[in-house]
């Protein structure tokens, strides 16, 4: 059983290495992912963010502008998710604490 487990793991590792060998090089500016226009000729949306982030918000860090300004409702949903997780731990675990330590 243990040999079968190791065999399955090696098989999937081989599949993933074979799949990763076809990926483009990191930092390749000829790659289609980093192009300003897509294949169909439309301008990629991220181009606007990269070119105009400093002009819009006077902030050199582009990631902060995208997370806090252009996609701020996404960040708001993320914060509500974290808040809900905290409230659920409060609701599940608080009752047991009162019973354990009177």
């Amino acid at each position, binding site marked *: 059983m243990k040999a079968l487990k190791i065999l399955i793991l090696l098989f999937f590792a081989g599949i993933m290495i074979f799949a990763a060998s076809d990926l483009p090089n990191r930092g390749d500016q000829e790659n289609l992912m980093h192009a300003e226009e897509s294949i169909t000729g439309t301008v990629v949306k991220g181009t606007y963010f990269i070119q105009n982030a400093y002009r819009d918000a006077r902030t050199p860090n582009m990631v902060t502008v995208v997370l806090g300004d252009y996609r701020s409702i996404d960040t708001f949903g993320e914060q509500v998710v974290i808040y809900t997780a905290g409230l659920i*731990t409060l609701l599940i675990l608080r009752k047991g604490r009162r019973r354990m330590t009177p």
Partner: protein
Amino acid sequence: MKDPFQSPIVLLGARLLSPYIMVFGWYVIFHGHYSPGGGFQGGALLAASLLLIRVAGGSRLAELQIREFATTPLAVIGVAIYFATGLAAVAAGGYFLDYELLPIPGMEPAWLRYTGILIIEVGIGLAVMAILVMIYDNMVRGEDYG
């Protein structure tokens, strides 16, 4: 653990390290416009500095920092700062979270966006810090791990 042991070396190390981690957390929050970082990472650093004292010193020492009942209102304040920033833009006649219309007089629209990003980063940091400390306080159930 029924018999908690107090190690003075661990406590001294935690007390020496915790204020610097907290200062670095505030630096990451307020310097997030110019360097990697932001509200989430800074809030997690603040929570790490609080949890270090809670693990090393027990709940009696932790009561001097942030008490257990204070974490839930801090989380609510953090979420409310973010939501109130969005509602202020709505009240000024724009879209939700449109920082150009925040009611701060004497600023260009670009610098208003800068200020709006800074305000919501502080809100995220407070909420993340309070929630991580709240999860720890609810998990230990009043026991000490000295």
